[in-house]
């Protein structure tokens, strides 16, 4: 018996893309939440390595593919230093908070000035690291975008 090829039309294909996109972001943010929750609960690096690798690989692919196509984001903040400076606050605050919670709740240490300063310094390092990375990516994006926009027409 001859197998019939299963085809979908363009609208079904677009819907499938939308479904897959939602599925991807669900997996992405669920993995992110799992890493944060495990980190807060005191898990070590080995325990969060699986989700960490999934996040790292998918993030690297997203960054590479979007920059290659000259895309920064999907209607979010424009690629400016100010926007990057604001966005970098999110991981910085999260990293500082996770460290603080781990020290206080998991390691059962009292809240001292040293602990607070360490958490603050960690948040600061995360902030600078994130901002630096975003600024490098912004420079790559601008360069790539300029190259794509400057490509000559076939008729030129």
């Amino acid at each position, binding site marked *: 018996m001859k197998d019939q090829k299963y085809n*979908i*039309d*363009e*609208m079904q294909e677009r819907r499938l893309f939308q479904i897959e996109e939602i599925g991807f972001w669900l997996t992405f943010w669920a993995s992110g939440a799992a890493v944060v929750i495990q980190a807060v609960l005191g898990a070590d690096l080995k325990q969060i390595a699986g989700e960490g690798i999934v996040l790292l690989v998918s993030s690297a692919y997203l960054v590479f593919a979007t920059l290659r196509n000259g895309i920064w984001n999907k209607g979010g903040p424009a690629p400016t230093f100010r926007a990057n400076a604001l966005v970098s606050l999110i991981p910085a605050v999260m990293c500082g908070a996770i460290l603080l919670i781990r020290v206080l709740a998991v390691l059962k240490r009292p809240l001292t000035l040293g602990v607070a300063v360490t958490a603050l310094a960690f948040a600061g390092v995360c902030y600078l690291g994130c901002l630096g990375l975003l600024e490098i990516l912004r420079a790559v994006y601008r360069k790539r975008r300029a190259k794509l926009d400057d490509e000559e027409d076939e008729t030129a």
Partner: protein
Amino acid sequence: MIPIGRNLKIKAARAERDMTQKALAEAVGVSRQTMNAIEQGDYNPTIRLCRTICKVLGKTLDELFGEEEEHEGSKVQY
């Protein structure tokens, strides 16, 4: 994104040829669900699909998908 309204022109052109939504969908090579979504204005088809629908119904792009205010001179015949 510009919202698209219901496409009554396709429905009228179908009626002229005595075609059901299912028959048109089969002739064009899409599902009935897709053809229904196009007529309801829930799906904005690609230019390739628009052209196929025009060919099957024997109409121009302007006649089926053109804006009401458009000038006659901009008609594209297939």
